[in-house]
């Protein structure tokens, strides 16, 4: 079953537009939503929750049309935004006391469990929490009302490498233990290497690819060669390239292979793919 399906989402701003954004997400998967800053990741996620009104397009969550079922759907969705820092001077326990009343399925035992598991002190104010703890607190709230789709907006951006790794491990555990589905936006490609099974790539408001990570990476190859090997014919086949002192390197679509000349063809990694695609 698709937990999330977005079809032809359009939203026009003065200087930016989401153009026919479409992708699907299967239950029990982790999907990384990747793109550089300003590519439209946050706008798409906001449209998913009605923060932003799309000009056209259809959003289905749990096979139900979201715009008609916003109220019931939000009971089952947890939205965690890395940067948002609401009510910084309130204690965690106060915010929880208010928040839990909105959810029919609130599970106090589970909540207490997550507090312990994440080492969260309910007496602490939000402003006293580290960035990683803030994400974990929001996660504890979302999981305690038994959200089955978790949407994260750049959850790892403000985290140190250890906390980031910790959070990504937690994602994997949650999918295994709680059968939740996770959609998270990021511009940090190593996050995807670690835990995402699926990748959706957005560039300038358009979806470039939405597929499983292996197929996505397999669709590209890195090309490396010396300055002498570089030719007009090669550059035409490449998505983009960089010249440096000892030669050149570039990215090519696997379907455009073979390539003339005795150049080195290497498997691509997500970071290189992102860098070269954005240079295109």
């Amino acid at each position: 079953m698709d937990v999330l399906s977005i079809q032809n989402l359009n939203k026009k701003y003065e200087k930016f537009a989401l153009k026919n954004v479409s992708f699907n997400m299967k239950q029990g998967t982790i999907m990384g939503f990747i793109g550089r800053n300003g590519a439209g990741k946050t706008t798409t996620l906001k449209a998913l929750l009605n923060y932003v009104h799309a000009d056209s397009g259809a959003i289905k969550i749990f096979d139900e049309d979201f715009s008609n079922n916003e109220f019931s759907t939000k009971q089952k969705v947890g939205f965690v935004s890395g940067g948002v820092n609401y009510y910084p001077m309130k204690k965690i326990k106060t915010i929880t006391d208010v928040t839990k009343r909105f959810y029919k399925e609130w599970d106090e035992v589970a909540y207490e469990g997550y507090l312990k598991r994440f080492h969260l002190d309910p007496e602490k104010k939000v402003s006293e929490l580290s960035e990683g703890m803030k994400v974990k607190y929001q996660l504890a709230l979302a999981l305690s009302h038994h959200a089955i789709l978790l949407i994260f907006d750049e959850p790892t951006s403000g985290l140190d490498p250890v906390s980031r790794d910790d959070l990504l491990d937690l994602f994997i555990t949650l999918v295994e233990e709680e059968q939740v589905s996770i959609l998270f936006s990021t511009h940090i490609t190593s996050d995807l290497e670690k835990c995402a099974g699926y990748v959706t790539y957005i560039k300038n408001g358009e979806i470039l690819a939405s597929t499983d990570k292996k197929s996505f990476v397999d669709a590209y190859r890195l090309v490396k060669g010396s300055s002498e090997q570089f030719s007009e014919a090669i550059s035409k086949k490449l998505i983009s390239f960089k010249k440096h002192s000892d030669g050149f390197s570039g990215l090519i679509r696997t379907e455009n292979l073979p390539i003339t000349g005795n150049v080195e063809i290497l498997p691509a990694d997500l970071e290189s793919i992102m860098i070269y695609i954005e240079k295109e």
Partner: protein
Amino acid sequence: MKELMYKEFKLSMHPIAYIFLILSALLCIPNYPYYVTFFYTTLGIFFLFQGNRENRDVYYMMVLPIRKRDIVKARFYLVVCIQLAQVIACIPFAFIRGLIPLNNQVGIEANVAFFGLAFVMLGLFNLVFLTQYYKSGYKIGIPFVLSNVVIWIFIIIAETLDHIVSYMKTICESVTGENMIKQIPVLIVGILIYTAITILAYKKSADSFEKLDL
């Protein structure tokens, strides 16, 4: 709505709005423009909105399983609660003022008609401040200035009519029991106007807020 109101009082309410209730005692000053008491009510509401903006209240609310309209409705209920609390807190002080045998030299007496006119003033504040605020969801300065221009114009008109219109001059400027009964229509009309324009303001605000991209 019960949960939302709990949230409004527990997270959103600004303590200054409670503190300004004490300013109802301004009605005891023998010579004072009593409308100023309700200006402080509007100032308390301004601080409430400012606090909520700085606390990113909207982003907290948007994740909750609630309708966008209900966010506006709960806030209107809170504003009405603050305003009614101020009116109720003023009543005992108006009685105390009635015991002082001096006429107010700078404006209307703290009587029944005054409360009716104060309701109109608060309604006008709601109409301007809240509808202007919900157009953007974050701008509070200009809506507050505009709403205060409107309420101060209203105060000037009300005080002027108090000296020109004979019903106002003879009956509404009095604190005798007999005249205060005759002032009841002003109170009723005031409450009706307050209710009508606050409902209108809610509809307008909810419509604007629903269209907003946050």
